[in-house]
């Protein structure tokens, strides 16, 4: 096998080694547990960044709805793995299903009228409005009482329908599929829009998704959270009572509790890493295929590409769906890692714009860049707290100990991480807009 190491791949390897060294530094000087916790989230961030890079780096689509797709993946993890609650299903399962069927039929009717009656002009709009409102009111006739009954069923412990009771690993695929199918509909209606309208529309839609998860208690328990999502890896407490594990730790001479927690985290790392590598392999294949070249051609010159007979709209839809599916997978993984689904954690700064910073800092259009960006930005997102605290400590040195202003700034110091992220993004956009590992252009 011939290995040709070019300058740019040398740089890539060097940057990844630096990242590894930074993680090892945390491991040696802070703690291995913390290091693995950061690493696991770095891996998930890298997968999300890979999805965004697909959309932005390959196709130039500004999707500001990352948060919504991550939440869809998360909800899939919850719905797949939790066991169904028979009582709640009995109380209102039928009503909810009927209501949803009515809604779906209404949607299909609206779509059919909208596409078939284009020649009717303004009348079409009012037909659609009347049918949509009527269908909605009719579905509420089934939904309302059913939802009330479901939410009244043991509200302190359940109050929702529960899930399917399948293994949680299965949900990563389901999360991807769910995000992809929602992305298909969103893409269908928004991809015709101009770039900045697309951003605003997707941002709005992702907020709606979160609103639904927060308020439809029968489905997600709303802000009451679903905890105790089953794990794909062993529990620390079980490990500690397992004989072989006790023996091994004793043999090496490690602390049992510490080691069990590190072992669990390492299991997650293995799972996440294999997903990342598989997706990276697929993305690289896609990037270097004719399909990938077509995407970049469309990105660079839409008019020319469509003059060459490439279907711009359908290509955009494809990549929008695929990228969103990857984000959905990452969202499901995140909820699996956390072991709980809480719709109020989804916040656009953390789940949409931070991922964007990752892609731009890493290098849009380059998968390795996106992954590196995911690692670096997440690492600094966590460590910025330490940096912020230090900065505040130095800045407030001249102030008297215990003064109100000093205490105030010590309390608000964690917010500096937002400021630092903004500064990093602005500096990169200005001085290195192609990112740390720039896109490789075939013609030099």
């Amino acid at each position, binding site marked *: 096998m011939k290995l040709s190491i070019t300058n740019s791949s040398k740089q890539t390897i060097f940057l990844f080694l630096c990242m590894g060294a930074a993680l090892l530094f945390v491991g040696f000087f802070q703690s291995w547990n913390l290091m693995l916790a950061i690493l696991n989230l770095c891996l998930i961030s890298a997968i999300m960044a890979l999805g965004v890079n697909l959309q932005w780096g390959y196709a130039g689509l500004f999707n500001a709805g990352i948060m919504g797709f991550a939440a869809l993946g998360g909800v899939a993890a919850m719905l797949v793995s939790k066991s169904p609650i028979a009582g709640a299903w009995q109380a209102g399962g039928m009503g909810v299903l009927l209501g949803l069927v009515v809604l779906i039929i209404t949607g299909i009717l609206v779509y059919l009228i909208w596409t078939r009656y284009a020649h009717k002009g303004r009348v079409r709009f009012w037909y659609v409005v009347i049918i949509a409102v009527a269908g909605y009111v009719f579905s509420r006739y089934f939904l309302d009482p059913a939802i009330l009954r479901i939410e009244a069923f043991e509200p302190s412990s359940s109050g929702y329908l529960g899930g399917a009771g399948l293994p949680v690993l299965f949900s990563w695929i389901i999360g991807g599929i769910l995000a992809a199918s929602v992305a298909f509909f969103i893409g269908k209606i928004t991809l015709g*829009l101009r770039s900045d*309208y697309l951003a605003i529309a997707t941002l709005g839609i992702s*907020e709606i998704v979160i609103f639904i998860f927060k308020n439809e208690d029968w489905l997600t328990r709303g802000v009451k959270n679903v905890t105790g999502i089953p794990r794909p890896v062993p529990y620390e407490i079980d490990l500690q009572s397992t004989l072989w594990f006790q023996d091994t730790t004793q043999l090496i001479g490690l602390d049992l509790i510490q080691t069990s927690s590190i072992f669990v985290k390492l299991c997650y790392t293995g799972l996440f890493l294999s997903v990342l590598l598989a997706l990276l392999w697929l993305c690289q294949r896609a990037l270097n295929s004719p399909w990938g070249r077509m995407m970049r051609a469309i990105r660079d010159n839409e008019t020319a590409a469509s003059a060459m007979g490439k279907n711009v709209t359908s290509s955009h839809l494809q990549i929008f769906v695929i990228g969103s599916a990857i984000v959905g997978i990452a969202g499901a993984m995140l909820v699996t890692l956390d072991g709980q689904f809480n719709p109020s954690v989804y916040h656009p700064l953390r789940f949409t714009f931070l991922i964007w910073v990752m892609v*731009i800092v890493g290098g849009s259009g380059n998968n390795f860049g996106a992954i590196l960006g995911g690692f670096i930005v997440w690492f600094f997102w966590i460590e910025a707290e330490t940096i912020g605290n230090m900065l505040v400590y130095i800045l407030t040195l001249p102030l008297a100990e215990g003064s109100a202003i000093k205490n105030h700034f010590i*309390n608000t110091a964690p917010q*500096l991480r937002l*400021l630092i992220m903004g500064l990093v*993004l602005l500096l990169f956009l200005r001085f290195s807009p192609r990112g740390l590992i720039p896109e490789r252009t075939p013609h030099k």
Partner: protein
Amino acid sequence: MQKSDKHFWEVDFAMIDVANAITLLANYIIVPSLAYGSQLALGALGITLVYAVLRFSNFAHGEMMSFGTMIAILMVWLFQSIGISIAPLPTALIALPFSIITTIFLLLILDKFVFRYYQSQRVQPVTFMIVSVGVMFFLAGFIRFIIGTSKKNFADGERFIIKASEFKQMTGLAEGLSIRTTQAITVIATLILVTAIFWFLNKTRMGKSMRAFSDNEDLALLSGIKPERVIIVTWMLVGALAAVAGTLYGLDKGYKPFVYLQLVLPIFAAAIVGGVGNPIGAVIGGYVIAFSEAFITFAYKRFLTYLLPDEWAPDGLVQLLSTEYKFAVSFVLLVIVLLVRPTGLFRGKTL
């Protein structure tokens, strides 16, 4: 209940019921929506000006509003500590000029060190938008670092112009109508500011050059309009609008830095529904968004009970969407308008 033998359309219509129903609507929909709509209108006007002259969607506008509000709050605290007040009116009104000046100053600094470079490079709008995301992050961090994340109420002075109980006594109706001082101030300030902006855009030389620049940049340059001056004046107008809109919103609903990030979406919705780049559209769009949020999430049970004959009185709340979805209404409206009529109600694009 005794069944009347009249037909339902022959029910004698009591005027008092109609008056009650109208008061109910005024209290829960018209007054709050007028105030909220004014705040949205001012915000949307700022976004639309940036879009028309600088040609990008400014995601940082919410944080710019938040910055203005923060300055106003700090000034209010300062005035309160040295005992300056304008008794029945909130102190924030005399803090407002300081907030406007500081916000304008901030935007000019941002223009000089951040936006100007991309202007000269003539980058694509989407790059500009990402730059504004960077500014949003930066400002969000800065504001939260300075003032913290907790909720702050800085409205002082007289709370109400009309209290619900006073109104009931005055008119003898069963429904009360209350108007808060902050709501009245919001509407009046919006009226003044919007009139001033329109006068500026239509009557002054600078306003006319702004419109020309927005309509056709190259042609404007050819006819001797200096782009730097147009851009600086635009940022000054945007700064003033953002500071006033933010302060009025904070005064009315309490200041919470987190909310201003969420507020960007209804504001964008207002600007786009009205037709982005069109100032009249932005103002109307603000009210359209505010009123539709209120009308769609209002529970009509009591309203209908007044108007309909007794035996028709509804059992449920008669509510299209529950109140939690208030914010979502504006997003849905936004998406619908983008799909059905992307240019907005008032054909947008240029000033």
